[in-house]
């Protein structure tokens, strides 16, 4: 534990063990508050959390685009028509 965190409830190990659930919004409110309190006073844990947050942001930014893929849609429609599907509109 870093000296600056020694007076706070959670140890640094306990913070790191909650790092992902904290970033995923999966911690109970009481635990979340204790994590936030620790992070306010612990630069080491804060840097780990910042790094993990940047990673998650990059993963979510990398998600394949949701734009309509016209060629794929045409291909799926052609396959569906083989099953009896007919456009109604």
């Amino acid at each position, binding site marked *: 534990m870093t000296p600056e965190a020694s007076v706070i409830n959670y140890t640094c*190990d306990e913070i*790191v*063990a*909650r*790092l*992902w*659930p904290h970033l*995923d*919004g*999966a911690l109970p409110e009481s635990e979340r508050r204790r994590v936030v309190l620790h992070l306010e006073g612990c630069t080491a844990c804060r*840097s*780990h959390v910042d*790094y*993990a947050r*940047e*990673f*998650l*942001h*990059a*993963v*979510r*930014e*990398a*998600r*394949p*685009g*949701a*734009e*309509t*893929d016209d060629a*794929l*849609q045409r*291909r*799926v*429609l052609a*396959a*569906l*028509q083989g*099953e*009896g*599907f*007919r*456009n*109604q*509109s």
Partner: protein
Amino acid sequence: MPDGTEVSPLQAARNAEFESVALPLLPYVARVARAIVRDASDAEDLVQETFLRAYRQWHSFQPGTDCKRWLSQICRNLMVDAKRKALRETPTPDEELEALSAADAHITAMAAGVGDMYARMDLGPAILAAIAGLEPVFKEVVVLSDIEDLSYDEIAARLSIPIGTVRSRLFRARRRLQEELVEYARDAGYHQTKP
């Protein structure tokens, strides 16, 4: 556009419902498929198979329920069917020990001189390739969490596994992704520009 082919009123109603409820979700299914399949062409095959199965089983879709979820389940079931031989249950590690590796990933990245790569590199293609290369049990939790935005509770319910297993698999999956990305950044010749 109607193509003039005669269909029964019942089938016309079924088609209309499928067209208005399921087909608009094609971009969403494509996003899921592209996240779980490495090859773009395989992903398109998976999208097509998903809609074919959905159309054949449209009678089992409950109107008013979440069609996105229904299609996503079909998509992932098809993926599991295709890879059933490779799909092995990975023993759940000690969750606490695994959780501690979250900081190790950062320490490793800093030691490799790539600690700021997320802010400075375009890692999108490398991230998708790394997700697609994960073992199935890890890939599915990452896709559900980070592509489909499900909560831990929802993932546990969807996969019928304990929430502790969701957390553990997510820890391990993200650790593996981070390791892969450190390797990628190093191979690309990236060096950290700040202390």
